């Protein structure tokens, strides 16, 4: 089977600043891949280079084995900035793009897409009167207009309330269930953790680490984070470092990573002997992976 997306040694500079440095990753068919990284890490540049809106300085991109510009029908792209016609209705916006791809029944296709993205009641509403969240959904809907096998979404849930975000998540899960391959950039790590089959962390223009969310979390070497608040932050951190896999100061607390119940018991036992104003535990998250990788 042809791999939907292969990014191979991609390089891109703006002026003298190297934004993408030997970027390599690929996405298997019917999976969702999350590209995460801090602002300015090169996520949007990566997306725009993949879809053909930016020219790479080096490296190659293959969409189902072909260069992006030779395979436009295979790509559905939802840019980070909302790009819709404000004076057209939701249906007309999607139908226009379906029409450009040669759909024989663009209005029917538009109605089906609006149903999929949860905007069925807004078919005849002008894009200009839709709420911010609805416009973002419409922005995504346009990417689905021609039912592409590869969907590329640049921070699709930024600025959405929980209800609208859940709608976008549902849409992405449904698309993947139908066999669509999805590349998603986000800086919401919970989003990547919940939705993505694989995650790549982009640091300084290259993939610093990659794997399933579970693999990435397992690779940290701890599965539980104990957060301790105390008056002597540095002393607590120093002592916890002797008992835990890792210990770091975050917002006037110490976060200690520990592996397994015996280790938790040891740390809790040690904590009972000091003056801690608050103690809490949580399971390790992708955020811990991100912090660990980006601070290397």
């Amino acid at each position: 089977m042809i791999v939907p997306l292969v990014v191979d040694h991609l390089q891109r500079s703006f002026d003298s600043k190297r934004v993408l440095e030997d970027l390599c990753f690929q996405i298997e068919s019917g999976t969702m891949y999350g590209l995460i990284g801090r602002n300015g890490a090169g996520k949007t540049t990566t997306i725009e280079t993949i879809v053909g809106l930016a020219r790479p300085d080096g490296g190659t991109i293959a969409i189902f084995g072909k260069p992006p510009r030779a395979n436009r029908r295979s790509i559905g792209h939802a840019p980070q900035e909302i790009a819709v016609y404000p004076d057209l209705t939701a249906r007309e916006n999607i139908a226009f793009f379906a029409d450009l791809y040669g759909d024989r029944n663009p209005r029917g296709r538009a109605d089906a897409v609006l149903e999929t993205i949860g905007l069925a009641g807004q078919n005849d509403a002008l894009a200009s009167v839709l709420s911010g969240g609805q416009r973002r959904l419409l922005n995504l809907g346009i990417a689905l207009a021609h039912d592409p096998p590869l969907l590329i979404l640049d921070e699709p849930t930024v600025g959405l309330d929980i209800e609208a975000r859940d709608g976008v998540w549902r849409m992405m899960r449904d698309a993947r269930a139908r066999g669509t391959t999805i590349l998603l950039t986000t800086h919401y790590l919970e989003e990547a953790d919940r939705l993505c089959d694989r995650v790549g962390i982009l640091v300084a223009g290259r993939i610093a680490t990659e794997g399933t969310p579970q693999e990435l979390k397992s690779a940290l070497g701890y599965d539980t984070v104990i957060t301790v608040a105390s008056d002597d932050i540095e002393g607590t951190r120093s002592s916890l470092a002797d008992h835990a896999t890792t210990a770091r100061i975050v917002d006037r607390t110490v976060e200690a990573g520990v592996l397994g119940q015996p280790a938790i018991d040891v740390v809790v036992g040690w904590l009972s002997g000091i003056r801690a104003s608050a103690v809490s535990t949580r399971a390790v998250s992708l955020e811990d992976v991100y912090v660990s990788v980006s601070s290397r």
Partner: protein
Amino acid sequence: MIHASLACTRRLLLQLVRNRRELLFWFAFPAMMLVLFGTMYAAPAFAKNIPFDAIPPGILVGAALFFACLGGPATAVVAERQNGTFRRLLLTPPGPIAVVFGTLGTYVIVGAIQALIVYGLAIFFHGNMRFDYPLAILVLVLSIACYVAAGIACAAAFSRREGEILAPIAAFGVPLLCLSGTFFPVSIMPPFMQRFAEATPIYHMIRAMTAVTAHRATFVPIAGDVLYLTLFAAGATVLAALSYRSIAAAERV
């Protein structure tokens, strides 16, 4: 490409219908100009020099088509860049030529309605127009093609923001209109200005349009004008396609 061009035409027409004020201006403005100049030139001071049937071609080409078919596509392209949909269009299969032809299709319809309004009023007030319909349609379509292509080229050359495009069009366009015989016949201008006027496409549009709508001229007397306009339209279309590509290159960072 035809399918994509028609899709662009339908979308632009829908947007124009939604923005009724712009459309109303494009239809009301030439009507007002026709009534204004018709009344002025009917005054004794003008009556001997400027026959009424010389007025509608200038009003149609200068007051109507110029603002709608040159200003319209220019602002449409700039608005497209502003709201981000231009970049989306770049990712779709149709090439720039399909978008240029789609825009042309839209403004052929707008220009045709303007022509019906201007000549409808001219016939109502004057009743003595003598048309050669096929040639009138040919000159109309060529004139619109020249304007649309020039408008798209202007959009690439002048601006990224909607508000900025109208100033250069007005600054260069209105003097050109005056010089080309839109408001005053070229024959009353000094000889050196007449020679300059003859080099402009608007002069040839007005001259050909006057011949085929007022004097039922055959093709021969307007052959030079038609050739000029055809060459200008072809050149401007190539320039528009290249400009569109240059906008595309600018958008592809």
